[in-house]
C-alpha cells in the first residue's frame, strides 16, 4: 500500500486553518464549525483506514511491526547527514497516536459545535482547533527530531492561542502567558538536548539516531559517552534535557504549574489539548526515543520514573482538595501522565521486560478516551450551571441523566474498575512497577486509591450531594445533540478500549507479545480503588459536615495541599524576588543607562554639532559659491605647495 495518503491527514486540518483563519470572520462565521468538523472527519476516516491497513495487513514482517518512512523531504541541509527533514514515519505508536488525535479532536469539534454556539469568534475558534490538530499530527508523524521540535512549538503556540481564547479576561491572558513561558522554558532544554544528540549522533533523523546511539560499538556512541560535562556523559545530559522538554509539555513536577491555569480556556479545548493529546506529547517523545533511553542510559529512566511517581502522587493529593471541577480534572490529568512516565521509567527494552512501555502507551490510549469524556462531561455541566465551583452543583443526576451516566463510566474507567478501559492499562503499569521497584509500586498503588477517591468526590459532588433540585423554569436542557453524541461515543470507547489486546500491537521493540492478565495480581489494586470509592461515597454522597471534619483531621497538610503545596508561590518568589531583583533589574539598569546612554550620547552630540553648523546652509547661492571657490583655492594651494 502506498502510505503517502497519510500526508492528507495533517494537511486537511491545515487547509481548514488557512481557510478559516483568513476568511472565517467574513464568510464562515456560522458555517466554520461544520467545515472544520467535516475536514476532520475525513482525516479521522483516513487515519482509521491507514491504521487498520498497517496493523492488520502489511505492517507486520516476521512477527515484528516495521518502521516505514512514507515520505521524506529534505528541507534544510546543514551538512551531509545532518539535515532537517519533513516526513512521515509510520510505526505502531505513531499509528496509534494519529487515531487518538483525530478521533478525540473530531469528538471535541462536534461537542464544540454545541458548546461554542453563538460565540463571537466562532470560526476563529475552529481555525485554532484545526491548527492544533495539524501540529499535533505533524508531531506524532515526524521522521526527524527537528521536525518534531518544530511541531512541538506549534502545538505550544496553538495551546497558547486557545487558552487565551477569552482574551478579555485577565486571568485567561495570564494563564496563556504562563503556559507559554513555562513550556518554552522547558523547550529550551529540549532544544539543547536535540543539538547535543544530533551533533554526536551525526544525524537528526530519528531512526538513524536511535541506531547510532543504541549500537554500543558505533563511533557515535563511543564519542557521546566519552565526552562529558561536569562528570556526566553527554548522552545522559542530552537525554535528560530532552526529558525536561517532555516534562514541561506533559506538566511533570515541578514544571506542572501551567496546566491547572490552562483551564481558563474553553472546556472542549481543555479536553482536547490539556487532557487527551498535547500533554501526552512528552510521554510520546520519551516513547519515541525509548530504545536510546532503555539501552544506553537507564540512569535517565530512573529520573523519569522518580519524576513520574512524584508528579502522580502530588497531583493526586492536590486534586483531593480542589473545588473547581476543571482544576480537579487538570490535576488528575497530571497524575495520570505521571503514571505514564513512571511506567516508561520502570520499563526495560524488549519482550516481557518492556511491559512498562506497553502499559504506558496503553494508558495513554485509554486515558485519552476517558479523560476527554470527563472534560466534555464537565463542560456540559458547566454549560448547564454556568459555574466551575463544586458548591454550586449537586443533585444533577435527574436533570442531566445522559451526562450523569457517561460521567460515571468515565469515573469508573479512571478509577480502574474492571471491565472499564482504565483497569487494563493501569494493571499493566502497576504490574510493571511491581516487578521493577516495590517502593514505586507502593506509591502507584496509593495514587490509584487517591485517584478513585477524588474522582468520586467529584462525581458525588456534581450529581448527588444535594437533594435533586427542581428544574429551574425556562432553563435549557442538557444540551444539543452535538454535545450528547460525543459523550455517548466516548463513553462506549471508555468501556471497550481496554479490551484491545494492546501487547499484540505495540511493544517496545515492535515484536508481538502475548501478555496475559494476572487475575490474582489485580485483586489488590481493585480493592484499593473500591476503598477510595466507598470512602468518597461515605463523605460526599449526602450533604453533611463529614468532609470538613475529615479535612480538619489533616490540619496543616490539608491546607498545604489546598494551596497546591505553595509551588506557585515558590515560583513567584524565585522569579519576582530573586530573578527580577538580582538579574532583571541590574540588566535593565545597564540597558537603560549604559547601552541607551551611549546611544543617546551619540545622538545628542550629532544634534548639537549640526545645530551649530546648520547656519552654513543659508539658501544663499552666492555664499555657496564662495565656499566652493574657497575650497578650490585651498585644494589648489594644498596640491601645489604641500603635496610634493
Amino acid at each position, binding site marked *: 500500500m502506498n502510505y503517502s495518503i497519510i500526508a492528507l491527514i495533517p494537511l486537511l486540518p491545515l487547509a481548514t486553518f488557512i481557510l478559516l483563519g483568513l476568511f472565517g470572520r467574513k464568510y464562515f462565521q456560522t458555517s466554520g464549525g461544520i467545515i472544520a468538523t467535516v475536514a476532520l472527519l475525513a482525516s479521522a476516516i483516513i487515519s482509521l483506514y491507514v491504521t487498520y491497513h498497517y496493523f492488520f495487513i502489511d505492517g507486520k514482517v516476521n512477527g515484528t511491526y516495521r518502521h516505514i518512512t512514507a515520505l521524506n523531504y529534505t528541507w534544510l541541509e546543514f551538512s551531509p547527514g545532518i539535515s532537517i527533514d519533513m516526513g512521515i514515519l509510520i510505526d505502531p505508536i505513531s499509528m496509534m497516536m494519529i487515531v487518538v488525535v483525530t478521533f478525540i479532536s473530531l469528538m471535541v469539534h462536534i461537542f464544540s459545535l454545541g458548546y461554542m454556539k453563538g460565540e463571537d469568534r466562532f470560526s476563529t475558534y475552529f481555525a485554532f482547533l484545526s491548527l492544533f490538530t495539524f501540529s499535533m499530527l505533524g508531531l506524532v508523524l515526524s521522521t526527524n527530531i527537528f521536525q518534531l521540535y518544530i511541531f512541538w512549538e506549534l502545538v505550544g503556540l496553538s495551546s497558547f492561542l486557545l487558552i487565551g481564547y477569552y482574551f478579555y479576561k485577565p486571568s485567561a491572558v495570564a494563564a496563556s502567558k504562563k503556559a507559554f513561558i513555562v513550556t518554552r522554558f522547558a523547550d529550551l532544554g529540549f532544544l539543547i538536548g536535540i543539538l547535543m544528540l544530533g551533533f554526536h549522533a551525526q544525524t537528526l533523523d530519528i531512526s538513524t539516531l536511535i541506531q547510532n546511539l543504541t549500537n554500543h560499538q558505533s563511533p557515535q556512541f563511543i564519542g557521546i559517552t566519552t565526552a562529558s560535562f561536569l562528570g556526566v556523559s553527554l548522552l545522559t545530559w542530552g537525554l535528560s534535557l530532552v526529558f525536561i522538554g517532555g516534562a514541561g509539555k506533559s506538566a511533570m513536577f515541578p514544571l506542572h504549574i501551567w496546566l491547572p491555569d490552562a483551564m481558563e480556556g474553553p472546556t472542549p479545548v481543555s479536553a482536547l489539548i490539556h487532557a487527551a493529546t498535547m500533554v501526552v506529547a512528552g510521554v510520546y517523545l520519551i516513547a519515541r526515543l525509548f530504545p536510546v533511553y532503555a539501552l544506553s542510559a537507564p540512569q535517565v529512566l530512573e529520573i523519569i520514573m522518580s519524576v513520574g511517581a512524584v508528579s502522580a502522587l502530588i497531583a493526586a493529593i492536590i486534586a483531593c482538595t480542589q473545588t473547581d471541577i476543571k482544576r480537579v480534572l487538570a490535576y488528575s490529568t497530571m497524575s495520570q501522565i505521571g503514571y505514564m512516565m513512571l511506567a516508561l521509567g520502570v520499563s526495560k527494552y524488549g519482550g516481557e521486560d518492556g511491559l512498562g512501555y506497553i502499559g504506558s502507551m496503553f494508558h495513554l490510549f485509554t486515558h485519552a478516551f476517558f479523560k476527554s469524556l470527563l472534560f466534555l462531561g464537565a463542560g456540559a455541566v458547566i454549560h448547564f450551571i454556568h459555574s466551575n465551583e463544586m458548591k454550586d452543583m449537586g443533585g444533577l443526576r435527574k436533570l442531566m441523566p445522559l451526562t450523569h451516566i457517561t460521567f460515571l463510566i468515565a469515573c469508573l474507567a479512571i478509577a480502574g474498575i474492571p471491565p472499564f478501559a482504565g483497569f487494563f492499562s493501569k494493571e499493566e503499569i502497576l504490574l510493571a512497577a511491581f516487578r521493577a521497584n516495590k517502593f514505586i509500586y507502593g506509591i502507584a498503588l496509593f495514587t490509584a486509591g487517591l485517584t478513585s477517591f477524588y474522582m468520586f468526590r467529584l462525581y458525588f459532588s456534581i450529581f448527588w450531594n444535594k437533594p435533586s433540585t427542581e428544574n429551574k423554569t425556562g432553563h435549557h436542557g442538557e444540551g444539543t445533540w452535538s454535545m450528547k453524541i460525543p459523550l455517548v461515543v466516548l463513553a462506549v470507547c471508555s468501556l471497550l478500549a481496554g479490551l484491545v489486546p494492546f501487547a499484540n500491537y505495540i511493544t517496545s521493540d515492535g515484536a508481538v507479545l502475548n501478555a496475559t492478565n494476572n487475575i490474582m495480581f489485580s485483586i489488590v489494586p481493585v480493592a484499593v480503588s473500591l476503598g477510595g470509592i466507598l470512602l468518597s461515597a461515605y463523605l460526599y454522597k449526602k450533604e453533611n459536615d463529614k468532609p470538613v471534619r475529615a479535612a480538619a483531621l489533616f490540619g496543616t497538610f490539608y491546607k498545604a495541599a489546598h494551596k497546591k503545596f505553595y509551588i506557585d508561590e515558590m515560583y513567584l518568589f524565585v522569579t519576582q524576588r530573586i530573578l527580577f531583583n538580582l538579574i532583571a533589574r541590574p540588566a535593565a539598569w545597564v540597558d537603560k543607562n549604559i547601552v541607551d546612554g551611549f546611544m543617546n550620547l551619540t545622538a545628542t552630540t550629532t544634534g548639537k554639532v549640526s545645530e551649530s553648523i*546648520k*547656519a552654513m546652509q*543659508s*539658501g*544663499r547661492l*552666492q555664499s555657496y*559659491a*564662495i565656499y566652493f*571657490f574657497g575650497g578650490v583655492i585651498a585644494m589648489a594651494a594644498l596640491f601645489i605647495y604641500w603635496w610634493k
Partner: protein
Amino acid sequence: MNTIPLTHILFVSTALFFIGMYGLFTRRNIITMLMSIELILNSVNINFIAFNKYLHPANLDGVFFTIFIIAIAAAEAAVAIAIIINLYRNHKSIDIEDAAEMKY
C-alpha cells in the same frame, strides 16, 4: 614683428576670470551674475587660444575647444534665462537674495 609675450595674454585672461568671479559673488541681479559667468567662460577661451597659438601652433585643438565652449555657453545662457524667467514669475523679482528658501 614684435610678438606679444604669452604672459601678457594670460594676465588678461586671469584678470577677466577674477572680474567675473567678483561679479558672481557681489551682484544681486541674477542676469548680471549670468554675465559674470560668461566672463569666466571667455577667460578660459582666451587661455585655450593662447596656449594653442604659442605652444602648439601646428594643432587646432584649442580652437575647437573654444568653439565648443562658445556653443555650450549659448545653450547655457538659454537655460539660465529660462530659469530666471520662472524665478521671476514665482518671486516677482530677479534678486538672488529673494530666492533663498532652500535652507535648513
